[in-house]
Each structure stands twice: as structure tokens, then as C-alpha cells.
């Protein structure tokens, strides 16, 4: 049985790692080498020039800066909104609470693509095209966080909340001192999902960004591909690797916290 388990493990790892390996390797290959038949597993000759080509042909630094600005702001706003509205939905009693929550969940069900045209109309009429505001604001409100965090908050043991109230902890202080410390793994997971999601946004920034001033990486890098021409995939893959690295680093850092958080808020017996 154990052997089968390990085989399954190896298979899954291979399924994930082989494509990643090929992206990295292709980014170091020359054009004929990429298309050689049979395919080569090791670049020969090595072509680190692909990376400098990316840096030279497109405004990589500007795209990276834009991506960071957009992703960081969006993540902070989405997580803050998500946590706070979820806290209210979970612990505040107010009229039409469930009905309102249903509305929020309903917003989750509406696919992004449907609202794009009306969002575009609004943003354009506000004069927000080709600005960070125009890219960020319509993406900032997402029901997913409220939904995920509320359900988590409801699963927290009531006794702790009651104890906090007995000690006279205020409502907001309860959030910071009691609820959140017990919720770090979920918050971190939510943050990670948001980060990756926003980092990879394509359609909306593409519609709103007209020039390099606000273009994020995924949109900017399409410039390496060419229509009716000849696409050299080496630099395209180099761009892909460069785009992946920052988010990978963030992931590794946050992942540690996620595991720490699993044990941090436990009830001491």
C-alpha cells in the first residue's frame, strides 16, 4: 500500500514540476533548441541572453512596479473589507442580516465577465481610464472574502467569545485580540489566494491600461509575443519566470506563517 501511495505522490509531483521545469529550461534555450526534435531536457547551448532581451525590449521594471502597486493595494483592501464585513455578519445582530448576506453571496455568483462592459462605462465616464484608480477600484470589492471569513468565524468556539465579553473586551478589541489570532491560517490562505489572483489579472487591466504607465506584467509581457510574425518563445518564457519569482517568494514567506498560525490560537486546556 505504501508503495502505491509514494507512486501517486511521485506522479502528482511530476505532473506539477515537469511543466514548471520546462518553462525554466525553455527560458534558457535558443530558438532552434526550443523546437528541436526530439526535445532536449537540458539547454544546449545555454542562452541567458533571453533574460536581458526581456529587460531590453519591454519596460520590465515599470510593469513590475505597476504589478506590485496594483496587487498590494488590492490585497490590503480586499482582506480588510473581507475580514471586517465577515466579522459583522458573524457576530453583529442587525435587521435583514441574512438577507444582506445572501446579496453578498449572490454577488459572488455573478461572473466578472458579465459586468465588464458596465464597469468600463462607469470607469470611462469618471475619467479613470489609464489610471491606477480605474484598475483598482472595480476589482477591490469581492464577496469571496466576506463569505469565506464569515463561515470561519462562525466555527470559532462560542465560549472564548463569551469569556472575552465577561472580561469587558470591546467589540473591535475582540476582533484583534480574540477572533483574528484564532483565524490566522484562514486569513493567510485568503491573502494568498487574493495575491495570486490579482497578480495574474489580465482582462480588466488590459482594457483600462493604454500605456506603459499603468500596465501590469501579464498585459505588458504579451508584447513579447507577435502577431503575424515570429514569436521567439525563449524570451516569453524568461518573462514568465521573472513574473513568477516575486509571487513565489511571497508564497514561501506566507506559507510559514500559515503553519505557525494553525497552532497559535488554540484553547489551552
Amino acid at each position, binding site marked *: 500500500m505504501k508503495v502505491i501511495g509514494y507512486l501517486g505522490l511521485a506522479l502528482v509531483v511530476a505532473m506539477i514540476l515537469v511543466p514548471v521545469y520546462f518553462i525554466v529550461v525553455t527560458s534558457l534555450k535558443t530558438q532552434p533548441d526550443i523546437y528541436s526534435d526530439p526535445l532536449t531536457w537540458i539547454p544546449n547551448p545555454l542562452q541567458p541572453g533571453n533574460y536581458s532581451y526581456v529587460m531590453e525590449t519591454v519596460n520590465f521594471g515599470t510593469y513590475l512596479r505597476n504589478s506590485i502597486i496594483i496587487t498590494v493595494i488590492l490585497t490590503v483592501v480586499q482582506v480588510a473589507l473581507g475580514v471586517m464585513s465577515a466579522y*459583522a455578519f458573524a457576530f*453583529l445582530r442587525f435587521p435583514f442580516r441574512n438577507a444582506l448576506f445572501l446579496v453578498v453571496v449572490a454577488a459572488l455568483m455573478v461572473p466578472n465577465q458579465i459586468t465588464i462592459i*458596465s464597469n468600463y462605462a462607469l470607469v470611462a465616464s469618471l475619467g479613470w481610464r489609464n489610471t491606477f484608480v480605474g484598475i483598482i*477600484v472595480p476589482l477591490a470589492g469581492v464577496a469571496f472574502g466576506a463569505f469565506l471569513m464569515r463561515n470561519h468565524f462562525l466555527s470559532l468556539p462560542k465560549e472564548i467569545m463569551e469569556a472575552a465579553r465577561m472580561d469587558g473586551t470591546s467589540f473591535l478589541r475582540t476582533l484583534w485580540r480574540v477572533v483574528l489570532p484564532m483565524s490566522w491560517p484562514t486569513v493567510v490562505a485568503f491573502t494568498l489566494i487574493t495575491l495570486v489572483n490579482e497578480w495574474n489579472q489580465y482582462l480588466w487591466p488590459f482594457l483600462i491600461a493604454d500605456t506603459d504607465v499603468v500596465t501590469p506584467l501579464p498585459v505588458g509581457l504579451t508584447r513579447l509575443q507577435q*502577431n503575424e510574425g515570429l514569436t521567439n*518563445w525563449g524570451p516569453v518564457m524568461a518573462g514568465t519566470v521573472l513574473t513568477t519569482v516575486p509571487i513565489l517568494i511571497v508564497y514561501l514567506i506566507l506559507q510559514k506563517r500559515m503553519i505557525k498560525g494553525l497552532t497559535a490560537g488554540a484553547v489551552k486546556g
Partner: protein
Amino acid sequence: MISRRNLLGLAGAGLAATAIAGCTGGSTGGAAASSGGGQKGSGTIQWWSNHPGSSKEVEQKIIDAWNAENPNLPVQLVDGGANYEELGQKFNAALAGGDLPDVIVASDVTWFNFALNEATAPLDDLWKEAGVDASSYVDTLREDYAYDGKHYGVPFARSTTLMYWNQDILAKAGLAADKGPQSWAEFAEWAPKLVEANGGKPALMVPDGSNYLDWYFQGMIWTFGGSYSKEWTPNFTDPKSIEAGTFLAEQFKAGHIGIAKDANNTFGIGGSAGLLQSTGSLGGLTKAAQFPFITTYLPGPKPGACTGGAGLAIPNGISDERKLNATKFIDFVTNTKNTITFTQATGYMPVRKDAVDDPEEKAYLEKTPNAMTAIKQLAENTAPQDYARVFIPGGGARIGGGLDKITIGGQDVEQVFEQLQSETATVYKRDIEPLL
């Protein structure tokens, strides 16, 4: 517990943000097309381009020249997307949301729908007002943008289909290294030799359906006597059209024709003897290929190739003043000098008649006979495209998908073509007929 009320407020704010993202009211939409005098501009001409044939640098060079001459009316180059479809998408969003550009790149497939829905402006009066001599454009290229007696575009990055042949492999197969097959039947005879000479690799690479196989196949279907449509009537089920489809499917099955997403690269590294591609690929291939190659006409009988590529159009919703300025700028981009600069950098065809008489261009064409092939073929071997592909919404993608099915998918040609026939007829009835 004072904070409860505050929290309610916060929750409200959160909901409001959700509402903005979730479902903004349509009240602001749709104003662009109908607004009376048209949108005023910001004093800059916005040119939305997808830089066909990787031409961003050349475009910018031409713009710089314009800006030097017209410091009061500068042009801004806007990245409109990775391909013609993305640019169309972005323009559609602008049509709904306002804030229109001054000049857009419109491809053979997208211009007609924009014109039909009055999203782009007829140019004839503007030409008169701006003093543009439209007769100086190559006639067939200009007439590609005619609808109902008016013109809705100016030829810009115009191409035809071309065949590229690896001369080393032609020689190895014992064939003349300076000409392509004269007919598709001759190609079928050549193919086994070419496959053998190149170690079993396909004799001809063609891009797949999502990369405009429908465009490349169009010339082939004509040589069999078939077509996608006759004017507005779909013609897929004509026995001759089906014969052409069957030929394509059989050649693919036999390994004579290879179909790939990125056919250029396969050919460029010697993965096939020949390539069926746009003239726009010439620039890139000349740089990348490590072997000598020639370009030839597509096999006859004539016409065996179609024109394609993109033109420039002007949105209808902008003010008359902006339209006039845009007309002048388009005239500048496509003037004799600039069309020469642009086409030499990309491989597209010069769009002005007198460009080929320019001494500098003459010298260039003598030096690079591969670029000459397209220009000569334009006069001898091309015809305008079938309505079913370029005028009926989604036509190109629909036919491309069908061709993928009969080749890569191995499905029955007759069935697929019948389906194309009925789908095309349905879309025509729904989207076109009421507007004509």
C-alpha cells in the same frame, strides 16, 4: 459597545464596494454612439494599434515624424492588445463606455461589423475635406473596405498568403529550387518526396484554426472551384467545396500537411519543407531562418490566394474635428514614404500605387525578391475574401474551428461542412439581414 453602529457603517461601505464591482447600473453605457456632436478630444490623437508584424518601433518612428511636423496635434500610440481580436474587444468596450480613440487598427474580419453597426465612420467625405487622394491607394486594397458605396477603412498592414520553401530541402528532394507547385495536385505529387527528403517531417506547415487556418485554406478552396460563400449565400456544401476540404483532410492524414499553432517556428528551424503563411511573417523569418528560402505564389488555378491583414478606421462617435484630424494622420501613416518604411520593416505590402516606383523601394525589391513575390501575386493571383469569413460575425473563428475538426479532429468533412453551412446561414439571418 459604541462601535456597533460604526461597524454597521463599515459593513455598508463594504457592500457598496461589492455593488460597484458586482453590478454597476447600465445608465452610463451606450451614450457614446448616439451623442449628438460626437466626443471632443483632449488635443491628442489616440491611435490604438496591436502593432501587426511586431511593428511597434516602426509605428513610433512614423509618429515621431508626425509629431515633429504637427507639434500642436501630437499622436499617442496606445497598446490595443496582443492581436486583432483583443483590439476589437477593447474597442467594443470603448463603444459601450465612451472615451473613444481617434484611429484604430481594424482587421479584415473586424472592420465590416464596425461599419455595419455604424461604429466606424465612412471616409469618402472626410477624404474630400482633408484633400486626400484615395485613388492613389492600390485599388484592390482600397476596395476591400467598400460597403454600400462608401469606404470604411484605409489599407495599412496588408498582406496576402504566401508559400515559403526551404531551398535546401527542395534541392535534396530533386526539385527545382526556385519555384513552388503550380497546382495543389502537383503539391500532392511533390509531397512524398519532400517528406522523405526531410526525414519524415511534413512537406507543408499551416497554422491551426485559432491562428487563421480559415484564411490560408480560402485560396485552396477556390482552386477546387469551391468557396465559403457566394456573396451572402453559404457555399460549404457545394461538392467542390467539400472536395477541397477532403483534400486538406487527406493530405493532413498522410502527413503531407502539418498543422500547428506556431507553424512559423516549425518551418524556421527546418521542421518542414514548406510553410503557408502571411507576407507579414517575412521580416521575422528572414531574421530567424538558418537556411535559404524562397517565397512563391500559392498554387493555382488563379486566383489561389486571398488578401488580408489590417486597415485603419476612424470611430464614428467622435467630433467632426477629431475625425478630420484622424483622416489627415491616417493619410500620413500610409503616405508613400511611410508605407515603404513600414512594409520594409515588416514584410507587408506597400499600400500606395507609386510606392513601387520609388527608386529606393525599387532597389530594395531587387535586392529582396522574396518581398517582391507578394506584390506581384497581388496583381496576378489574388481575389477578395468570401463574405462568410470576413463579413458574417465570428466567421473566421467558426470556419477555423471547422477546419480543425476535419484535420486534427479527424471528423467527417461532409458533416462538419454541413454544420458550417447551417450555422453561417443562421448568423446571417440573425445579425446581418435586419441591418442591410
